[in-house]
Each structure stands twice: as C-alpha cells, then as structure tokens.
C-alpha cells in the first residue's frame, strides 16, 4: 500500500498531460476527426512554452505562448482538412513530423546548444500544510501545479460541452452521421472546423503541463508518443469523457511504475518503458472489440433504438 501511495503522486502528475490531450482528442473524435496530430500539438506547446518562458522569464507568458502555438498548428490542420480537403491522417502524420523537425531545429539552432532547455523553476505548486496529516488526501492534493487541477476540471467541462450544450449536440451529430446532421440543418463545415482549435487548445495545455510541470525543461521529442497514447485512450473510452480520464490515469500510473522500476532495479528499463505503449495497444483492441460487439448486437436486434450501449454511446455524458 505504501508503494501504491508513493506512486499516486507521480502517477497523477503524469496523467495530467494525457487527460488534457485526451479531452482534446475526444472533441475531435466525437466530431468524426481522426486526430493523430495531438502529438504534434503537444510537442509544439511543450517547446514554445519552455522557450518563451526562458526568454521572457515568465512562466505564465510561456504557458500562453505554448497553448497559442498548439492552437495555431491545429488551425493549420483545420484549414488543410476543411478547405483543402486533405486527408486528416496524412496531414496529421506530416504535422507530427513537422513539429518534431521544427522544435529540434529551433532547439539545436537557437537554444542553449545542450540538447535541452532548462528553466529555473516550473509552475508554482499548491501546498496546504494542514493536509499533511491526512495521508491519502495530501498525496492527491498537495504539491500539484494549477494545470493539474485544471486537467481534472477539463473532464466535466468536456462532458458538459458535449452532453449539455447545443454545440456539443451538433458536434456529436456530425460525428455520428455528417449527412444526416447537415440535413437536420447543422452547419457541418464550421463546427467541424471549430473542433481543431479546441483540440489544439487542450492538447496544448497538455504539452505545456508536460514541460512546465515537474521537470520544467524541454528536450528533443519529449512527448514521445503521448499524443498518440492519449488518442488511444479516447478510442478505448469509446468517446466518453470519464472513461478517457480513467484510461489516462491508467497510462499515467504505468509511466510512474516505469519510472520507479527504472530507478530501483537492474531490470532492463526499456521493457518497463514499453508498458504504456503495449497497454495502449491492448486498450485499442478492447475498444475495437467492444465496438464490434455493439455493432453485432445492433445488427441482431435491428429495432432497439433504446439499446443501452447505443444510448450511452450517443449520450456520452456519463
């Protein structure tokens, strides 16, 4: 149990970027956009938040710049796919490589020449000393930066946006069936487009948290697949916000375990580091399997409009 408590702190911390990116991916996914560029958005935000923070001396300015850069990259993707009708997977892959190339280029050209940019301090941490006596609560709440709390809040926010607003309803309608949505008077193009800056915003927060959080540095390709893992979490969750949160915490914990084993034992660290990726593949398989079963069921009973699985898939407010 002590180990479990010990893991809770880094685990939740590592989960925060994934939650943000997951929420960003969720909004794309529900609008029917297969967004693997989350990875690039995160990397952009991580780099620009740290480099602007280093140049200006202000963490908050860095945060704003990082998120803005991710939003801009997302808008590029939106323009490419919505106006120029480009394939979103192809643009996604290209943008991921673009962000990797550009951040590494800027890092090695303008940076400190050390392969990373280090900040003196990261985001301020929340401490409530009177909670130190309460074991579990202190682990969960103390020593966290504001973005981590924001990450948790983004889950109900996404649930509200998707489930309780007109915008969310239209967005989901587009994701389910764009032709029907258009027939029902939904302005498909603009709403679909609007999900790009939104997902860029959340993924950008995730990238900024990754860089400005506990490590407060940027290193080459520091996201290393987190955006893709976050999107796997979305698919695993079947598009439900709470499920995305749970999957993110799971992946965060796996990373924390990896970090711990890396320090403590002679067990090859590479195998431990593989765990989140393998877990993501398992999650994808489970998600795919569940979807297949649902399809099978709805095919077997054609008239079940109130089928609970379908209803929850449509509702998704959890």
């Amino acid at each position: 149990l002590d180990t479990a408590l010990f893991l809770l702190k880094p685990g939740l911390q590592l989960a925060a970027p994934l939650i943000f990116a997951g929420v960003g991916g969720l909004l794309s996914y529900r609008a029917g956009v297969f967004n693997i560029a989350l990875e690039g958005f995160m990397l952009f935000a991580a780099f620009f938040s740290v480099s602007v923070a280093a140049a200006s001396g202000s963490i908050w300015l860095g945060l704003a710049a990082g998120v803005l850069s991710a939003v801009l990259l997302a808008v590029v993707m939106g323009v490419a796919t919505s106006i120029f009708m480009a394939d979103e997977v192809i643009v996604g892959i290209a943008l991921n490589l673009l962000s990797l190339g550009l951040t590494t280029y800027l890092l090695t050209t303008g940076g400190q020449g050390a392969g990373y940019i280090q900040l003196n301090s990261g985001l301020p941490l929340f401490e409530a000393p009177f909670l130190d006596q309460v074991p579990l609560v202190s682990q969960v709440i103390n020593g966290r930066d504001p973005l981590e709390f924001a990450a948790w809040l983004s889950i109900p926010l996404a649930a509200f946006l998707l489930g309780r607003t007109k915008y969310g309803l239209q967005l989901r309608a587009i994701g389910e069936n764009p032709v029907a949505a258009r027939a029902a008077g939904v302005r498909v193009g603009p709403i679909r487009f609007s999900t790009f800056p939104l997902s860029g915003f959340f993924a950008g927060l995730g990238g900024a948290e990754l860089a400005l959080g506990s490590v407060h540095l940027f290193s080459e390709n520091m996201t290393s697949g987190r955006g893709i893992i976050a999107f796997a979490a979305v698919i695993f969750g079947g598009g439900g916000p709470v499920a995305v949160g749970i999957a993110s915490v799971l992946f965060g914990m796996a990373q924390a375990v990896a970090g711990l084993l890396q320090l403590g034992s002679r067990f090859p660290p590479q195998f431990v580091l593989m765990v989140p990726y393998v877990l993501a593949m398992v999650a994808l398989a489970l998600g795919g399997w569940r979807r297949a079963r649902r399809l099978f069921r709805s095919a077997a009973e054609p008239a079940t409009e109130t089928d609970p699985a379908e209803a929850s898939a449509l509702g998704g407010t959890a």
Partner: protein
Amino acid sequence: MVAVSLAFLVGAAVLVATQQSPIDVAGAIYEGAFGSSAATLTTLAQTTPLLLVALSFAFAFRAGVFNAGGQGQFLMGAFAGAWAGFTPGLENLPAIVHVPLVMLAGALGGALWTLPPFILKVVAGANEILTTLMMSYVADLANQYLVLDIFRSAHIQAGTNAQTPNLVASARFPELVAGSHLTIMLFLALAAAVAVWLLYRNSVLGFELRLMRTGALLARSSGVQTSRRVFVAMTGSGALAGLAGVALVTGFLGADITPLNTNVGFNGILASLLVSNSPLLIPFAALFFAALEQGGIGLQIFTSTSPYIADVVIATVIVFASARTVPALRPKRLLQALRAMRAEPIVDGRPG
C-alpha cells in the same frame, strides 16, 4: 511542384526567423547532396532505405491498410539483418549465401513486427494506424535494449553511439564505388519497385489487394479471403521496411547502432504520399528527400545551421501536397470552397 516550392518558402521563412541566410543554406544543401561525385553517390546510397520504406508504405496503402509503423519495422529489420551478419558461426559462409541470409533475416524482422497489429486488427478491429505507431515506439526501445544490453560491442562508432559487433565482410554487399556506401541494394530496391507495380497491375493477388482498398465488405462478398489479404499486405509491407533496415546496416553503418537517430521510417511514408503511392514514381520522391537529408548533413558540416531544417521542409511539402483541392488560387474558388464547407457532406467519417 507547387507544394514543393511553397515548402521551400516555409523553410526559408524559418531560416530567416532564426537569422540564417536561406540562400547560403540552400547552397550548402545542394553542395552537400550533389556538390561532388562522392556526395552524389552518398545521396544515392541514402535513397535506398528511403525508397524501400516508401515502397513498404505504398504496398500496404494500395491494399487499404495504413501502415504508419514503417519506422519500427525498419528498426527491427536493421537489427535482425545485423544480427544475421555478425552472429558467430556464420562468418565462414560464402557471401553468396550470407548476404541473402542477412536480407531474409531483415525482411523477417520487419514482417514479424507487423504481426501484433495484424492480429489486433483482424481479431479485435483495432485501428492499425495507431497500433503500428505504438509498435514503432516499442521497436525503438527493443532496439536500445538489444544493442545496449545484449549485443553491445566494445568499440564505439563516431559520435557516441553504442553499437553491436560489426557485420563480417561476407554479410555485406561490396561497395560499388569505394567509400560511397552505395551497393547493389539500390538496384534491388528499384527492382522491388517495379515488382510491386507489376504485382498490383497484372496479378490476381494484386487485383484482390486493390479490391481490399475499395472496401473490405465488397472484397469479401466477391470471394476474397480478406483476413489473408490483410496479412499479405501487412507482412509484405513490414518485410520491405525491414529490408530498408538491412540497406542501412549493410550499406552505411556496418552494424546496428543505438540511438539510431533517423526518421527514415517516417520520411519514407511521406515520400510515398508525395507521389500518391505510385511504385514507379517512388524512386524519384525518395531521391528528392534523400537529397534534402544528405544536404542537411552537409549543412551541419559546412555551416552552423542545424540539419533538422531538412525535416521541416520534407514535412511541409506533404502538408501542402495533401491538399486535394486548391481553391485559394482564385478568390472566387475560395468563396465556393468556403460555401462548400457548409454544403459538403463529409461522407468519410472515419471510424476509430
């Protein structure tokens, strides 16, 4: 061509923003890629792995399978090929046996790496784009482990990369021109491009694979055993990517190294996409990207500019080239497109 020029403009803008002279850099890239006959030959040698990965991507893509994990299959092919080349007991084999053995090992290594995504796709319907990407990260770690912990050799290559023992001479193609790293692997890769083209054009298997792209349901109802065809598409693609790894190991490195700082696996995908996955055009796309990469390396030597600018340009080319309609050229067309944003029914709601 428009996409390429626009990408160069973006690259130039990035250079100006970081206070470098685009003209000097372009000159240095050209110099590094084609400046001397040695440079040209090295560029050609660089083309080989890129060509094979691009072909690997096209092979699967034309059968409706999106293999985004060429990088991982490439890494595993590089290791498996190297392993067959340095493992003790084989050094007395004649080259005529040993070289094909190395190639076979590399192809197997790449093909094996596509098996988990294949199984997950067929059994559970897991999206292969994401699973193959995941496998790439796993491959990177696996390669690190194998090179660092199991097969680490005492001496270290230029730079501070750890490496496996060197491949024995009988496991490597002779260099066509000494010092160029260029081997007949390039011609084998070109032959593979023609073979893939012929396969898709003139064979029953190729027809069935093409049918898969139109839609698995249609293919199945036409009597194609879809799972088997997906298997062919994925493992064949993995084998080609694995051969790209062999090309790098036998041509350039002479051993498997870590960290293998190359994006060949991803740039190959982009090279294939640049020419709409057409096997006969892929060699040209590969040459173009290889020249940019090789020129980027020259850049680092001749100037202080970071070689990663080449990656920026390559990725930007694809962002522009992926446009299916170019309405922005005429204001009227742009207006139409914006209006179409409202009207366009997006049929391709890509399920996850």
